């Protein structure tokens, strides 16, 4: 797939379609029914409400990168440019991270952080919802031991399910806090193996259910939002595409982007 990917990159390959779909599902308003068009209308509203990222904002809110040689579960992994079919001078991004905002009443001011990449330590698709941080008093007052916020994480794949990570007091006379994880897994609870993604879609095609498919207007809205980022990158041919080693979670620039907001990436 190198031929295709060289022309596409992570932003086109994953963000414009899959990631924006997931974002829409998380941020959409509850539909008035499960009718396909009603659901797709609500999803479209999210995409239309995305704050545009263009011009210099791209430099601040979007990080792209390309993997270099590293290790995959202990075994050496080659650099992207050394993969078969890839130009030795390729500038194609194999990783992209974004900070996005949805400008509507519900989500105003709430940052959404998206990231996708090849040769990351794990193959996984997850959504994590970080609850609001508590004030630095009571249990969160010690600067040396600040508590992470509670997190609701939704595992799309593998091992579908969701988990709630909260801070709990360790039993005993002293006040000591420890993060605990309550975990639900479809596989071990219901005993069935979930269908693969394309199994489900093929079934929907046969059943004539378009709910999970992107409607033309949603595709166009997604492209309208993505294009200014691609345009900015095209303008900035002089800009370096930061590297990250295969087997790492991304470049330092992506860490810097999220850490500048007082947060950090959650590793799955």
């Amino acid at each position, binding site marked *: 797939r190198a031929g295709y990917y060289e022309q596409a990159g992570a932003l086109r390959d994953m963000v414009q379609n899959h990631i924006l779909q997931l974002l829409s599902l998380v941020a959409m308003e509850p539909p008035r029914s499960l009718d396909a068009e009603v659901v797709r209308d609500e999803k479209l509203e999210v995409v239309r409400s995305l704050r545009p990222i263009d011009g210099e904002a791209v430099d601040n809110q979007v990080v792209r990168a390309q993997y270099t040689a*590293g*290790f*995959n*579960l*202990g*075994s*050496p992994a080659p650099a992207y440019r050394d993969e078969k079919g890839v130009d030795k001078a390729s500038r194609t991004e194999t990783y992209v991270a974004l900070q996005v905002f949805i400008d509507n009443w519900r989500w105003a001011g709430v940052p959404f952080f998206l990231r996708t990449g090849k040769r990351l*330590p*794990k193959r996984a698709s997850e959504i994590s919802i970080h609850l609001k941080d508590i004030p630095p008093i009571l249990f969160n007052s010690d600067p*040396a*031991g600040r508590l992470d916020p509670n*997190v609701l*994480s939704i595992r799309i794949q*593998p*091992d579908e399910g969701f*988990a709630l*990570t909260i801070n709990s007091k*360790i039993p005993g006379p002293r006040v*000591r806090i*420890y*993060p*605990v*994880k309550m*975990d639900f897994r479809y*596989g*071990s609870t219901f005993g069935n193996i979930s269908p693969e993604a394309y199994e489900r879609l093929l079934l929907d095609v046969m059943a004539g259910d378009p709910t999970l498919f992107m409607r033309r207007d949603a595709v166009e809205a997604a492209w309208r939002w993505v294009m200014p980022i691609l345009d900015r990158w095209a303008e900035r041919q002089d800009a370096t595409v930061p590297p990250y080693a295969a*087997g*790492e*979670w991304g470049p330092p620039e992506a860490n810097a982007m999220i850490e500048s907001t007082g947060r950090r990436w*959650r*590793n*799955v």
Partner: protein
Amino acid sequence: MTDRLSRASSPAGIDDDLAVLWRDASRDGPVARALMANLVVYRDCPATEQIDLAAPVTQVPVDEVACRHPSRVIVLHHGGQPDLCAPMGASVCILLSGPPTARFGVEQIAVRSACAEASLPSIVRRLALGDIPTSVWWTEDVSRSTPLEALVTLGRQLVYDSRHWNDVRRGVLALAPVIGHRHAPDLADLNWRRLTPMRQALTQALAPPLGPIDARAVRLRVRHRPGDGALAWLLIGWFTSRLDWSDADLPATVEEHAEEDAVLSVSIGAPEATHITATMNGHHVRVEYEGGLAPFAIATLHETDADAVAAELRNLTYDTALRDALAALARRVISSGSP
């Protein structure tokens, strides 16, 4: 009672093989998956050594720790032979514990690697689960097997035992880069933990109404049992950091003794101050004053190494006293060469 279900695996098949084990484990009834933390256990393993990855680690109480503080355990058996460029093998295991009506299981993954050390973090990143703390337990003698910075800084906590240090000086120097790292983990030294009752006793002994201690005038004589040199020097580091002794001046002597049952004894003298002696054996720390003040004793910790490691994993606090003591010792080693 603990049961152990294990299965040979491969680096690529770990998740699938664990799923098979969970199904096997729940054949006779529900088993809860217990998970508080990731625990990375590092073991030196020369490439020529034959080991059974499915067998429990016997040299350190890994299984006992995992059951006391339920953790996904990732055992890295590593021996440097960089021309072998892939993990040599893996196995997975589920430890089942608890009463029949409330069985729980913890996962254990063992990986044998002879690759470059730089590859080890990629194994941990792949196998560690998110949203829970990760601790690295360096089971080897830090003074002989320097903790790999890239590995230990992946975790929130580094657990080790300086009692095993063959060379205190080298052990202190090996930890210095870890302490100074931008993403320095919390340190948990089991030997520092053993020193807790002595530190508590001395803090109490030196508190008012004995009067404020003039740090410049204090003189220490520390005597330790053979093999407990690191304990003595940790105590020196603690005094150095608390009393702000200079790197060049050490108003203390450290001696090894082989008599009595004392693990550690400290004599503290200062002009115009009461002479104090604190002696720690296997049961208590006894503090005696010269001049008639009533002595007192503090009980020592009675715990196994498994209890100690599990307690540290549960603790997760930033031990500034240990860090300061090690930093003080490191400065002393660099400036004066002692210990």
